[in-house]
């Protein structure tokens, strides 16, 4: 399936959860915030949030800024 992750079309395994996507890339789940189809996903729900074909996912975190 294709999920648009941070603006980029990304091929993912069917049924993959948000948490699995992060873990596969060594991104600590507690350091990011996610928005799926414009709705914020609480961190506690990452593991049960199954991604679907055509989803738009944003994964963000804090960076240096003024």
């Amino acid at each position, binding site marked *: 399936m294709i999920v648009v992750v941070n603006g980029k079309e990304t091929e993912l395994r069917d049924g993959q959860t948000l948490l699995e996507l992060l873990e596969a890339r060594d991104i600590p789940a507690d*350091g990011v*915030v996610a928005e799926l189809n414009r709705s*914020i996903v609480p961190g506690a729900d990452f593991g049960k949030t199954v991604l679907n074909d055509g989803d738009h996912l*944003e994964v963000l975190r*804090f960076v240096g*800024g003024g």
Partner: protein
Amino acid sequence: MTKDILTIGGLELTSRLFTGTGKYRDDSLIPGVCEASGSQVITVALRRVDLESGTGNVMDFIPRHMRLLPNTSGARTADEAVRIARLARAMGCGDWIKIEVISDNRYLLPDGYETAKATEILANEGFVVLPYINPDLYVARSLVDAGAAAVMPLGAPIGTNRGIRTREMVRILIEEIDLPIVVDAGIGRPSEACEAMEMGADACLVNTAIATADDPAMMARAFGRAVRAGREAFLSGPGARAGMAVASSPLTGFLDAGTAA
């Protein structure tokens, strides 16, 4: 002197210098800056994670005791600022937000109308809202009505290190607006932060001037001292100015008084 406390959003601050985390050549400089400056409030931005190449996490370098002030940089409209603010709060690091709505890429000047709209929405959602604005009295008044916790007028465009170019307008906000005034952006030297505090500003936010110094920690210490000096000068009630000289020493009892020349 009784303790001089700045209260914003119910939080009592003893330091009136806010700092940022942008532009450091190495984020590992940040803890030293925090310690040397004495700052208790620090800004961060929210950005997309690079999923291909993991990089360092700025949060690893921000001391736990500091109040995080995420900004909405990147927002060009009120709606975008609200979206970013909600995401920032979902990070679980508190409900303070610096509203930054900018669509001008050359001078990075904030859009007062969109900023006020975002402020009202977010204040109603329980955010502690610190909007970044041009020092415009009417915008500032609309922010008071919108429920802002403080107002952050710019001294000069972001990152320019040019000082308090907007002096007269900032002075009017200090006089007229019954909210903490935090001079944000443009402060390039400790003397300029000191000047803002002497004018009666409640605090200064300094990022670029500290982050891009050769020795950021030493510059942070200098800024911390300058802000304290300016604050004490303001509280002490500066004496009147005069056009002509007014002698500081007595004008009587001179050594040769009364003797023939």
